[in-house]
């Protein structure tokens, strides 16, 4: 390995700090869309740790599933539940911020 173990220790420490900060943010954030984004951050940090643990298969699965599909499922459900709040966006697209009940149906 060309990378020294000292460097890997720092990378693991950085990934751990990001993951734990994201996990605490999931519990404390008021906005649910931001909480879903924090969950994706935790999954990406875990994916980085899986690469360092010499498991590329698992890292690929965690990145595709945790950051991709799981985030899409959660965000879609939040839209259906009416918890999709985009602050300050008055754009004329379908994600209007003033929907309080379900979706545009």
């Amino acid at each position, binding site marked *: 390995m060309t990378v020294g173990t000292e460097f890997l220790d720092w990378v693991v420490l950085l990934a751990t700090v990001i993951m734990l900060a994201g996990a605490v943010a999931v519990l404390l954030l008021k906005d649910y869309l931001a909480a879903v984004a924090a969950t994706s951050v935790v999954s990406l940090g875990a994916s980085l740790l899986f690469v360092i643990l010499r*498991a*590329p*298969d698992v*890292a*690929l*699965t965690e990145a*595709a*599933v945790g950051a*991709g*599909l799981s985030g*899409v*499922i959660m965000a*879609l*459900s939040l839209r*259906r*539940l*009416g918890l999709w709040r985009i602050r300050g966006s008055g754009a004329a*697209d*379908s994600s209007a911020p003033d929907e309080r*009940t*379900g*979706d*545009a*149906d």
Partner: protein
Amino acid sequence: MRDYLSLLFIAGLAFLLFIIAGELDFGNAPMRVGQGINQAAPGQVGAANIVTSVVLAYRALDTLGELAILFAAATAGGLVLGRPRPDAPRDPDAGFILRTAADLLFPLLLLVGLFVIVHGHLTPGGGFQGGVILAAAFFVPLLARPGTRFRHTGFAVVEGLAGAAFIVTGLLGLIYGGDFLQPLLGPGAMGSLLSAGTLPLLYMAVGLKVGAELAGLIARLAEFEAVEP
């Protein structure tokens, strides 16, 4: 008050777990079974990706169990959500950038997903990763144009046939090889696309099943009306 008690409980739990972790030997895994698999798998199964040979040859029954769990979750999700009304109002189409990007992404995601599935026994990847990418490929156009009718019957047929293909290949292994899900057709030349016997076929079945299942489930989520008229 309940929050402080919960914090105390979590602190106690973490303390217990750390005592246990102190006894664990990180970096020196015992690897009793893993050592044998690492030595025997390249010769016996012939896949360059040893994790694939564990998933599809040595522990193939666990993969069958996972497919069953996925099927149960997707079916239960479809049952819980129910069928949308045919005349339900839909969200308007997304903007021009999103629609064009979705049209461009669809063939690319399809290609990347199939590539990851087909090369599962050579490089990191395989049926589950490629299946997730395929599900995303079928779902991104639905995000851009929410009004399109999603053909659930086609996906259900693909999912059922792929699952049946997995089990049929396993039964052929039982008939010709002696064990259920025994890899047939010999190891082959390591590193080439046509190696590792029936493993690429099994992964193809797994990938198509997972992709069709997840795409159908997310499409049902997207069509669900949370507000009853």
